[in-house]
């Protein structure tokens, strides 16, 4: 089973950049890396996905080093509404399903 390791919790303040790093030492050659955000009482929301180097969208950036054994989700200038649990996962295309780890609880303070 795909397994990832990420910090249990993080704290930040409004306007700061937040970087959450995840390790996935057993990632397979064909696996993609994907990140989800979950607010209380809601289903997880897809944030960003990548295979290598850097991916950026309107919400976040994803940095993946050459060995792909880790990845870093970067949230620029967080606000209170970014307080949520962030999950890092990796999976192969096709049939493979998403297996969730514990996630990182990010708390953004005023």
């Amino acid at each position, binding site marked *: 089973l795909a397994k990832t390791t990420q910090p249990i919790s993080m704290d930040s303040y409004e306007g700061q950049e937040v970087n959450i790093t995840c390790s996935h030492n057993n990632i397979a050659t064909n696996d993609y890396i994907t990140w989800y955000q979950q607010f209380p*009482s809601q*289903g997880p929301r897809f944030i960003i996905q990548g295979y290598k180097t850097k991916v950026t969208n309107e919400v976040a950036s994803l940095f993946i080093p050459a060995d792909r054994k880790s990845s870093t989700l970067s949230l620029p200038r967080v606000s209170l509404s970014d307080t949520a649990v962030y999950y890092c996962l990796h999976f192969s295309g096709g*049939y493979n399903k*998403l297996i*969730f780890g514990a996630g990182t609880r990010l708390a953004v303070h005023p």
Partner: protein
Amino acid sequence: SAVISQKPSRDICQRGTSLTIQCQVDSQVTMMFWYRQQPGQSLTLIATANQGSEATYESGFVIDKFPISRPNLTFSTLTVSNMSPEDSSIYLCSAKDPQETQYFGPGTRLLVL
């Protein structure tokens, strides 16, 4: 992106009864899944819903307890059978689109008394 709706959004049930949760996706998807999430915990995959055939269950989950149907590409149901208080949880439907992005529904909050 795919938008997933679930019915009911929440329910309170008596032990020994069964509840069927419906999941509808607004666009074509390839795979559909059912997850469970206990309060304050991460998501646990129950099964993959296969169109026109029996679902594929993860370890610890069985068809008699969680029968699943998927009569077409965009609709699935999960039944929680013979419920006990330990089944109180949030049940989430999920679907993967042809671009391999997986989306989640809002969840069904179940309380068993």
